[in-house]
């Protein structure tokens, strides 16, 4: 290992150690000492069908098809162990992050560059303990038609699942990723701390669709950073409709090159007792960049804090933020916090936020066609959650639609 790299790794460890007790800027502080258990190891499986620890149905709900049909590749991690990684199309690489860092020295240039290692105790915990995660690499100019599927599964109780994902989409490449995070049914309290760093190079395009299927005892602290270069597009779709104890995440995209685009779509349903503090932040640093942040929050006596921030720092910027919330049951709370930060006279930024109950007039309209009140309400809530996601290939659009419908039918 070259001296310079050794020094950098030491520096990262030093920074992480200094942040080991640093509470996150947002969300309830969690005492990490509570989660001391060590998960067992798991064998590597060549075929997805052989991963007996996961129920195929559970996998399907997170977007992972066991037959890998119409998929560009697959990645499955259980607890801390990579149990499967495969690429089925040319121009794409998939492997565990640790293996990737050993294989490619250049990858260290992307390591902790989009998320600060000392952001908080969760990022520090990922750096200071053995971890894994996925490295997904789309080679320059590669147009990957089918989505790549990844599943992060938490099986063991009372421990911290630490992940560090690195996604690099090279110049002119196009890649779609569907990733699901799920935990074992009835799992005792556990914590998921996942760092994801995305690099979308010049004129590249990345669509990242994430489905979270947690359980009511789970603490979840994802930490994501995205760097988008000139002419590149990043689309993030986030679906979380299952109960969770406390989720807090605030991914940040920086649009660093002229004409870069970022879109965030979040669809959330909070069950009674769940707290979801979910935001999306886009920093538009280059001229002519565009951003759209859309969130749809539905609560059934749970709490959702829907944050959104767009910061425009260069001329010719256009950005829009939209937070809509529906409170279905008493005891539910939606706290929408849209923020605009304009730093140039030539920016065009707007936001709209609305929180309320379901419109009785719409329910009655559907009832007049013969739908029961329950059917009408459910159809309206589903419609509310169905954000039209622009710029997806039809196959992926259908797949996301299917995932949404599955999540909705379970949550509502």
């Amino acid at each position: 290992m070259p001296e310079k790299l050794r020094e950098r790794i030491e520096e990262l460890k030093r920074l992480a150690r200094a942040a080991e007790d640093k509470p996150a800027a947002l969300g309830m502080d969690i005492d990490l000492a509570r989660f001391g258990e060590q998960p067992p190891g798991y064998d590597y499986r060549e075929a997805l069908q052989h991963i007996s620890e996961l129920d195929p149905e559970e996998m399907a709900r997170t977007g992972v098809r066991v037959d890998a049909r119409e998929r560009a590749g697959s990645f499955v991690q259980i607890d801390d162990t990579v149990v499967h990684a495969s690429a089925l199309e040319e121009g794409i690489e998939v492997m565990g992050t640790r293996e990737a860092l050993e294989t490619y020295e250049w990858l260290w240039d992307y390591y902790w560059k989009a998320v600060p290692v000392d952001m908080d105790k969760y990022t520090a915990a990922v750096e200071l303990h053995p971890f894994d995660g996925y490295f997904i690499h789309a080679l320059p100019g590669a147009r990957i038609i089918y989505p790549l599927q990844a599943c992060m599964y938490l099986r063991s109780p009372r421990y911290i699942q630490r992940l560090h994902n690195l996604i690099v989409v090279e110049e002119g490449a196009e890649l779609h990723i569907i990733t699901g995070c799920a935990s074992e049914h009835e799992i005792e309290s556990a914590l998921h701390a996942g760092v994801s760093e995305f690099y979308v190079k010049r004129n590249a395009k990345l669509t990242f669709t994430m489905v979270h299927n947690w359980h009511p005892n789970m603490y979840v602290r994802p930490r994501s950073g995205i760097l988008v270069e000139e002419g590149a597009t990043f689309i993030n779709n986030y679906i979380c409709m299952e109960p969770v104890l406390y989720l807090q995440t605030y991914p940040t995209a920086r649009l660093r090159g002229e004409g870069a685009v970022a879109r965030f779509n979040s669809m959330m349903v909070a069950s009674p007792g769940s707290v979801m503090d979910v935001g999306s932040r886009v920093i538009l640093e280059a001229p002519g960049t565009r951003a759209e942040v859309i969130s749809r929050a539905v609560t059934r006596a749970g709490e959702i804090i829907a944050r959104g921030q767009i910061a425009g720092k260069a001329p010719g910027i256009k950005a829009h933020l939209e937070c809509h919330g529906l409170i279905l049951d008493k005891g539910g709370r939606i706290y929408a916090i849209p923020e605009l930060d304009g730093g140039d006279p030539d920016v065009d930024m707007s936001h709209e936020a609305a929180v309320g109950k379901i419109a009785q007039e719409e329910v009655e309209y559907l009832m007049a066609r013969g739908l029961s009140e329950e059917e009408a309400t459910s159809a309206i809530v589903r419609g509310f959650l169905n954000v039209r996601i622009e710029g997806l290939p039809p196959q992926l659009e259908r797949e996301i639609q299917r995932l949404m419908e599955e999540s909705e039918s379970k949550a509502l």
Partner: protein
Amino acid sequence: MLEIKGLKVEVEGREILHGVDLSIDCGQTHVLFGMNGSGKTTLLMAIMGFPRYRVTAGSIRFKGQDLAGLSVDERARLGIGMMFQRPPTVRGIKLMQMARLIPAREERDINVLAGELNLADFLERDINHGFSGGEIKRSELLQLLVQDPNLVLLDEPESGVDMENMQVIGEYIRSLLQKDRRRTRDHCGLIITHTGYILDHVEADVGHVMCDGRLVCSGNPREMLEDIRENGFEECSRCVR
């Protein structure tokens, strides 16, 4: 088919209908004339059973059954359907999806129906979102044709509709009311009209004038319309037959 007796209806604590009697036989089409605010829409809403329209006295019977206590959807499933004058926009629900959600008595090919109603391009749009007056009416008709109700309540089917659309709308209202069938007709209709243009397209059997929450006059709908065109509703309220 429909039998209304002594119906009084309150909206937000204010009585709007002060005792309405109306009987529509199987196969008949009735039209309801009257000034704005006379209570025409309230009558339709009360028949459909919207909770805001509270029945304080009298009864509505449909197919021999008292509708009191039945919810809007129960009435719809019993065979009552309504064309709304100003239906709400429902974001996120596409017209196609809506048409498929409606409990249909007979399966209809929605694509074919939409083609005939010039709505093919609207099937994948959110219901009523950015629809013009004519488009709203055609979308309402599409939904009603799928539902196929025995009692069709039409609230100003001609409002906001241009001549060209009126032809199509008239044709499909006739189809809803089974105007091409005489002996086997088991549908009936109650149409609110302000202008009466709908009578150029759909034959009606009986006309009524509503004034201040009461049906003050009934008779031949064409003659009544001519009378109203000549003398206005002012005369109706003075006329005691």
